[in-house]
């Protein structure tokens, strides 16, 4: 198992080291959330062996890292499309069209929540409050990019720019 970290690039390991440095020396496990995000960014999703590699790098049991990966919503334990769109349908967003925005995306892409388009380009997810209710309807692209005021024209524009 000498090469168990090979599945993560030196760049990714460097980023994880930077996270580890934020915490007391005996608390490396604190970096697991950030480390799993870094791994997910690199791999596109989190296969079990990647989770195990992250756990090993941080000196924790694989199951402890898997508990974290399966507890927090934005870790993808199954492959997702190139663009993962997450639409908030919670009440404040829904009052300004969040559910309608989700319906509109479903119709445009021909998929339901938790489905991926046949070309592997888009995955659609139903999201919970993203803390931006004043900008409703709100969507996330690949977890990190927030899109505000997503009315039909803005959704069309977003879908068109996702190549």
């Amino acid at each position, binding site marked *: 198992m000498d090469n168990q970290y090979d599945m993560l690039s030196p760049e990714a390991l460097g980023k994880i080291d930077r996270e580890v440095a*934020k*915490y*007391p020396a005996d*608390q490396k*496990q*604190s*970096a*697991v*959330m*950030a480390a*799993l*995000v870094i791994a997910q960014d690199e791999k596109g999703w989190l296969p079990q062996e990647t989770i195990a590699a992250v756990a090993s790098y*941080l000196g*924790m049991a694989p199951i*402890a890292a898997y*508990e*974290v990966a399966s*507890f*927090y*919503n*934005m*870790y993808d334990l199954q492959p997702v499309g190139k663009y993962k769109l997450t639409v908030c*349908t*919670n*009440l*404040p967003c*829904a*009052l*300004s*069209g*969040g*559910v*309608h*925005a989700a*319906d*509109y995306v*479903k*119709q445009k892409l021909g998929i339901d929540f938790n489905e991926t388009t046949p070309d592997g380009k888009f995955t659609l997810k139903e*999201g*919970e*409050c*993203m*803390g*931006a*209710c*004043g*900008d*409703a*309807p709100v969507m*996330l692209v690949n*977890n*990190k*990019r*927030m899109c*505000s005021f997503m*009315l*039909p*024209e803005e959704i069309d524009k977003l879908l068109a720019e996702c190549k």
Partner: protein
Amino acid sequence: MALIDTINPLLTTGWAKGDAGWSLKDYEARGGYAQLKRVLASKMTPDDVIGEVKKSVLRGRGGAGFPTGLKWSFMPKAAPEKYVVCNTDEGEPGTFKDRDLLRFDPHSVIEGMIIAGYAVGAKLGYNYIHGEIFEIYQRFEAALDEARAAGYLGEKILGSDFSFDLFAHHGWGAYICGEETGLLESIEGKKGQPRYKPPFPANFGLYGKPTTINNTETFAAIPFILGMGGETYLNLGKPNNGGTKLFSVSGHVNRPGNYEVPMGTPFAKLLELAGGMRGGRRLKAVIPGGSSAPVLPAEVIMDCTMDYDSIAKAGSMLGSGAVIVMDETVCMVKALERLSYFYYEESCGQCTPCREGSGWLYRVVHRIEHGQGRAEDLDLLNRVTDNMMGKTICALADAAALPVRSFTKHFKSEFEYHIEHKKCLVDPEVQRAGSGFFRASSVTGAA
């Protein structure tokens, strides 16, 4: 969403330039870090700082409204290792103030946390930032780099004997981590499941060490309180409800956004600042403090002032200051269904009454909304809430139950109509138009 309007701005003074005004030089130009310098140079004792915060009657801005100065005074003095933690896991539906604070004025939070560290004797702090606002997390990290380079963070700050460092930790999609002990578990690299209290974080917090944990807006207020004095700050608001407060106004208003007003401002004034009701429609109901606060009918909220005591007297909670405004196009059964789904999804699963009860609430509200409600369902909902409230480790069960109780109490006839007639009292076409999504005539909306 930048600030649009305000009364006596304090926390939002730095927001005027929007995304162009967050950096260290901008913050310093508007008097930033002056209070940290004064505290360290004048050798104010930690007790002096806590005393000033106590005088201000600053109450925790995250939702519970606990007096901040009192919380700080609970920290054991002798403990060698202590922490300061900021809760920016802003996931209470309707709340989006802390995101803008970190976006437009991150250094005010940093300065507040350093001063808090000095007051409670901590050398290390963490700001836990909601996973969904990753761009804001990156901005906060950039602000931390600036502060560190300028000598506001690190060893022997500004030539004093006080050392303090601060880091950002991001969440990744779990509402429960807004609960303070769930958040601490999460920083420790675990599932964010809340701990039993007591012991409280002041005795057993992060890594088992004494920890002060406050909301983002609470920390941001600290430099202003020290600048003007606790008493002056208190007098900006009303007795027992010191200072100004950020209100996140969402839903059916013309200008959703954050508004900073003095505690005790009439709700009607806040509604006016937010541009009034969208399309001039009639106000139906307001959730005044985030989605777990009981809903209030229009005639009740219109008589309230926006402060902890007035909203509590009306039967709800000021909570995080998230004001969700609903007009006459809203079906209250459908609105509750959205909320119940949220709590069902976000229950951490640790306590049986919450894990099972939140599912029951969602499924029963869902079947009422979808025309399959039964005559006994309203009693059933009440019984389920009875079996949840006060019976779990944290308050999520109560947060799931309170909307159900208040919606079915204040809008009972709508639920009864749904059960009897198998459809909404509010015409579906009216509801559809209410969201404003389909305003462009060229668009053919989904059914």
